């Protein structure tokens, strides 16, 4: 079973630290507002930071800076592409932060990690203490939408129509992906084989990309038409659709310990193209 899920990256970094910092100038983040941009977390400059790169591999730049003890991971674009949410250890507590790509300083939202926006950008779904919450960004109200007796929930992903949230849950018997109404309710199972977790919707809402123990796959929300997208040696993780749904960006590692490189592959499967290399690049999101 996979022991380290997305949010565990933060704990992992806290425990094992990061390599010595290299010189890395944060870019003028306002210039990163453009269609066809991929954000990801990377330790290429020492501590984990949020970086961006164009899908053709150009324009690689750091979007966040912080003290060497602070690590930023799990970036997610807002629906309009003007902001990103990310998880960070800034201030000593793992929390959710919002960065406006227009140039403002990051703003702490609340405790938690693994956040994702609703389609209208007014709410976020996130994980806190292995349960899934929805938070109103304006009023600050929160609601737990995962069943109280479900022990290890992770990776919430909001459907494009805003009605459902996909998430993963880990049991003794393994992982499974579920759907739950965004207002809460009884989850329905999508898939429960091969350590399925890390769900994320296609832009049209007809597919969910997820990861198995070692590969990236897609499946219809009703659990049919399961498709393995990657089938390579090593480990593939963190698949995310491109804005047009035709491609998927994911991480490739020689082993479960990395190091991780970003690749882009057609969503139907095919030949992957190397996007980044050098140290570890993880948790991509594409807008």
């Amino acid at each position: 079973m996979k022991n380290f899920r997305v949010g565990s990256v933060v704990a992992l970094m806290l425990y094992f630290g990061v390599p010595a910092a290299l010189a890395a100038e944060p870019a003028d983040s306002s210039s990163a507002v453009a269609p066809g941009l991929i954000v990801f977390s990377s330790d290429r400059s020492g501590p984990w930071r949020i970086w961006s790169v164009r899908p053709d591999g150009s324009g690689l730049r750091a979007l966040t800076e912080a003290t060497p003890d602070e690590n930023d991971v799990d970036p997610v674009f807002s629906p309009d592409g003007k902001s990103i949410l990310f998880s960070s250890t800034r201030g000593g507590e793992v929390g959710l932060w919002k960065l406006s790509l227009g140039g403002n300083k990051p703003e702490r939202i609340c405790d938690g990690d693994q956040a994702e926006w609703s389609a209208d950008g007014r709410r976020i779904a996130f994980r806190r203490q292995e349960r899934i919450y929805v938070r109103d960004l304006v009023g600050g109200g929160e609601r737990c939408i995962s069943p109280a007796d479900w022990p290890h929930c992770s990776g919430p992903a909001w459907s494009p129509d805003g009605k459902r949230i996909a998430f993963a849950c880990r049991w003794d018997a393994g992982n499974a992906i579920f759907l739950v109404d965004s207002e809460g309710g009884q989850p329905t199972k999508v898939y429960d084989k091969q350590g399925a977790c890390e769900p994320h919707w296609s832009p049209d809402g007809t597919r969910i990309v997820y990861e198995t123990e070692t590969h990236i796959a897609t499946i219809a929300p009703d659990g049919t038409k399961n498709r393995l997208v990657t089938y390579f040696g090593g480990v593939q993780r963190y698949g995310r659709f491109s804005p047009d749904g035709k491609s998927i960006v994911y991480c490739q590692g020689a082993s479960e310990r990395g190091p991780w490189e970003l690749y882009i592959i057609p969503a139907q499967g095919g030949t992957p193209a190397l996007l980044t290399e050098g140290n570890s690049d993880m948790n991509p999101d594409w807008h």
Partner: protein
Amino acid sequence: MKSTTLAIALLWIAFTQVCLRGKAAGADYEPGTPATWLFDTGSSSPGPLNAAGLASKSGWRVVPEDGLAHQFRGDAVFLNDRVIVVLRRRGAGAEVYCQTAAAPKMRAALLPLAASGDEPGVLVNATVLENNLGAVMLTATFRTPGGDTCELRYRLTAGQVIVEAQPGKGVDRLLVRCPARYVVVPDFFGDDMVFGSEDLSRPRLQLPAENFCLGLSDQGSAEVMCVWQSSRQQAVAVRSGPGLREEGQADEERETPGAAAFAGWEIQADKDKSIWVACFDGTGLWHQQVLATKDALGAAALDWKPPFAAKWRADLLRTGGAATSWFFHDPDASKDGPAASETAVAGYPCCFEGGRAIVRLAPELQAAAGRSSLLVYALDRSRETPLATFCPIDILRNTLGVGPCQYILQTEGLATETNPTPDNVMTWVEKQFARNRQKKSADEIRELLDQMVAHVGHAQARIEQYGSFGREVCNLCGEKAPVLRSIGESIERDAAAFSNRTPPPAKLASQLAEQVVVLIGRKNSMSACEKLGAEIRQIGASEDRALARCRMAARWLRQSAAMLAEDDSSQAALAGEVQVRAERMLGTK
């Protein structure tokens, strides 16, 4: 008139094309893609399908996706771009072919065996459980010669070389027919065990494998790997045909290229536990070479080059399945193979230089081996390994899950959430020194070093337990069972080689840790920290290796005792006692 004729002709051509597509290969089938496809051949074949039949797919129809109610009229065939699985009506099991550039080659057959006998049954029914472009899964029902029925599920996923078998009702063992020249029981930390024809004094060889083994065949171009979920499941290698070792036969004669020593394996079925069989195909996947004495002592280039970048394993074969193992050192690779043996670290007995595989064996190594037969195969991938190339550790990840690198510690009950191994802890500590944070992190450094010293102490205690166990076996066996006694002696020897060091490893780790703590207050102490780190890591590597060697030997002792009990009834009681004690030792954490 002409135009009418032409139009009719064109319509006829179009009609026949549509019919042929529908009849021959199915309207949607896209050959060469990683996706999985399920076919109904339309008629049943009395014998294994040949390459031409598999290629033409004449008369075959694609079973529609998610069509789970399909009733097969002929044989069931499911495939991806790497593997073809054939379930023939009245056949004895699934025949597995590799899709090679030239033509499909049968590499294995997966047959259920009932508890009532060694004869496989015949397929009487196949039902579809899963059928999409990502995976195909069938339940096959077999009727045994004794009239019993048993069920086995087969599953193939897109782009993979692995066939999963889930034994169901009535299945006692899975027979994997895969002729092999060598059977390898790899050990990621210690030495492999490698069995060839010279090790076959009986028709069935109980393997000391915990979860997987490899069969090497076809003169270097084929490997079959078998993985099972529980270390409780017994694995037996079955001898190929008659032809036991003949007295006076020379090594060279017995090592006839391509001669299969083994017919395959039997893996004990366990409730709800899968067994996976992976087939690798390609030139130079493995290589065996008898080194001339002068070459072994000097530097010899093997008659082989690695077909792809990977962590290549080299086994210097000894007698009775024993081997001395290490990884090829690759100066161009980003990182050497993990946990290479101390010998390899010291002098790189095997390395790649300018694309050649070079072997330099120290005299004592050659003398210990008695002969210099070297076996090479890829065990794990490196960062440079092509994405579409699979190594055995990839198969382990795909089947048992991630984390095979933690294998020996987990198996021995020494893995913890924080996993304070010497390597992990010193990597973290060195990062604090590199970032000049050692003063700020002083408390954490001390705490982690304490945990590391405790970890080394636990491992040392465990190795000493093995040493005591080895002595116990020697005393128990005395002169009555020399084979078992010699294994007991090897366990005692390996344990003592680690534990009897001066100072003892745990004490040395403690002393070195104290020296690291002293560095915390000093300036420019990074290089001193790294030097201490190298010494501490060496303790960890030795510990992993000693532990792995002891465990492998204990497993081999257990299997050897079982075989002795079968072969010599007068020794059955003693062998049974050794088996019980070995089981207890392996199970006690």
